[in-house]
């Protein structure tokens, strides 16, 4: 069952590659939150109940509901246009993300450790690199934040791979999540929108040598 969920998760990455509108990105992030909820539920069922509740609440409430709603609010408030404005055509994105997944498959064959299941490793790493790819190839600051959130999801999957033995690490991952969301989104909603009207990375190019 976890394998099915993880594969669906990998498919959402491909969908990210061809998505046009920011709203689609937000929906994908929400879906990923729900998928992580499922994976965490099945995988961590052995750890103590309080901790499990905490992890599940974090995935479903923060990742699945709060952050997507918040991103939606930021988009409306700052009147950000709907298009994701990639530098590269979507077809190329799709190919590159596929290549990322294939590359992590090949990389995972180098592992000779029976305790860590390879599918976690593959999905986590490809999520990570897809997030980086999204950051590099999109114009708007808000898509950079979304790319970062995708990276966070990848890290969360990776921490689940060892979740039963070291649940403390899953909690640390959640701490990272909370920290980063407060941080990036907090600054975003407060200031960037007020100072720079249509938010675009091109406006952040004055500091250089």
């Amino acid at each position, binding site marked *: 069952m976890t394998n099915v969920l993880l594969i669906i998760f990998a498919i959402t990455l491909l969908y990210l590659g061809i998505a046009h509108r920011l709203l689609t990105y937000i929906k994908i992030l929400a879906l990923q939150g729900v998928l992580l909820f499922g994976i965490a539920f099945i995988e961590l069922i052995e750890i103590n109940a309080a901790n499990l509740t905490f992890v599940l609440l974090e995935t479903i409430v923060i990742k699945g509901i709060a952050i997507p709603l918040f991103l939606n609010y930021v988009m409306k408030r700052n009147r950000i246009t709907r298009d994701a404005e990639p530098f590269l055509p979507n077809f190329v994105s799709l190919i590159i993300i596929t290549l990322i997944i294939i590359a992590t498959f090949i990389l995972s064959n180098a592992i000779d450790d029976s305790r860590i299941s390879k599918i976690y490793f593959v999905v986590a790493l490809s999520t990570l690199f897809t997030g980086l790819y999204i950051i590099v190839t999109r114009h708007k600051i808000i898509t950079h934040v979304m790319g970062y959130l995708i990276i966070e999801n990848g890290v969360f999957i990776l*921490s689940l791979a060892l979740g039963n033995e070291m649940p403390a690490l899953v909690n640390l991952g959640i701490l990272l999540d909370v920290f*980063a969301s407060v941080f990036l989104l907090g*600054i975003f909603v407060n200031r960037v929108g007020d100072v720079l009207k249509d938010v675009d990375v091109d406006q952040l190019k004055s500091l250089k040598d």
Partner: protein
Amino acid sequence: MTGIYLAGGFGLSALLFFNRNKIIRYLLITTFLLLQIGFTVYEYLHPGTTELTYFSADSLAILLLVTLTIISIPAFYHSYVYLSSKQDNPKHTAIYYASMAALLTAINAAYLSNNIAVTWIFVELTTLAASALIYHRRNNRSLEGTWKYVFVCAISITLVFIGILFLSFSLPQAGTDDLSFNNLLKKASRLNVFWLRLAFIFIFTGFTAKLGLVPMYTAGIDAKDKAPSPAGALLSSVLMNVGFVGIFRFYIVIANSPIHSWANHVILIAAMLSIFVATVYMTRVKNIKRMFAYSSIEHAGIIMLGLVAGGVGYYAAILHVILHAFVKSSLFFQQGQIYRIYQSKSIYDVGNYFKYNLTGAIVMLLAFFFATAMPPSGLFISEFMIFRSLFEANYLWILIVVMLLLTVIIWAFGKNIFKLLFTPAVDFKEDNIERINPAESISQFILLGLVVYLGLNPPQEFITLIQEAIKNLPQ
């Protein structure tokens, strides 16, 4: 005592945040400094104690703690001068002091923590506090600097976390699940090599954002440039040391594992690229503060070379870290005065500094000699030892390239500093420039004096502490 300090530090920071009364603010800051000094003295007198499970005062922590306390006092003083020199919004002033106190507390905790996960948490907190300081001026460009700093630091913190995850994958083979540095050191030879390599790459890359090495150095440059100069002094001295602590403590573990020489190659590449990047930018940078920031990148590279070379290089690396913190913070403190006279940071707008601020110009000249590691600077001693260890470790070609690059850096640095000191400024109106009180430079003289003293005639206690800090590295 650590518990009291952490509660007190963050508590005072919260009080500073909510308080709007001037007198109470100064009282709170004095209390914070007393707490900081008291805590440092306590830890100095009780070396090796572990408190709250996760904080132990080993010799490296004590050395850096004392460095931090010495720098924090002038940092608050110069912040006071900076903030009272203009009509500032009381809310912004409150946020400034509160985040400075929080930053210092978090840095302290990061020095003391003996568990890589705890170090990681406090490094997160330093990013949070530092970003409030960088954003202090609240204009477009400081927003840009803050945004870049936050984003790059968030990414690098994530990288460190991934590294910690990989590290935990390597643990079951050694039959343990404890991430404290001591335990990792004990089990170092039995950790799974594949995961350990990945862990090292990610943790090293993540901490380079704080230390200021290739690849993640970029955010630090903008941050040090846009932050007010007293805050810039903290960012380029004590906050850099946080990155060093993270890398160094993990490096001790790696040095006792089978991948030591492989890790040395990784660090060597990062260090050489850092010195190269610093050289390239130093020759063309026109902003004085950014020039200082690039000089920090160069010194971070030299410190890493000391680690790579081994032998006497380990000792020299720690010495270099401490002395560099003193030199660089005094340069940044002094930069605040330059800005007040010329209202500009560009090298084109400044000049003839001796005429307008004699004491400040002397500090600038001295600090330039000290930062480029010329005698009698203590950095000369540490750099010389690092070069010697490189020679002894048969890194002759590396040594030659580094020396060539350093020569270019000294030339570029000197060109700009002598322009500032002696060449008359173009179109500069001398009518109502601010008179700078010479007393404002006293702290810089003290810091520079310390650099000479600790470099040329180090007290026995100081040497013992450094030797204690490197005792777990293979000789």
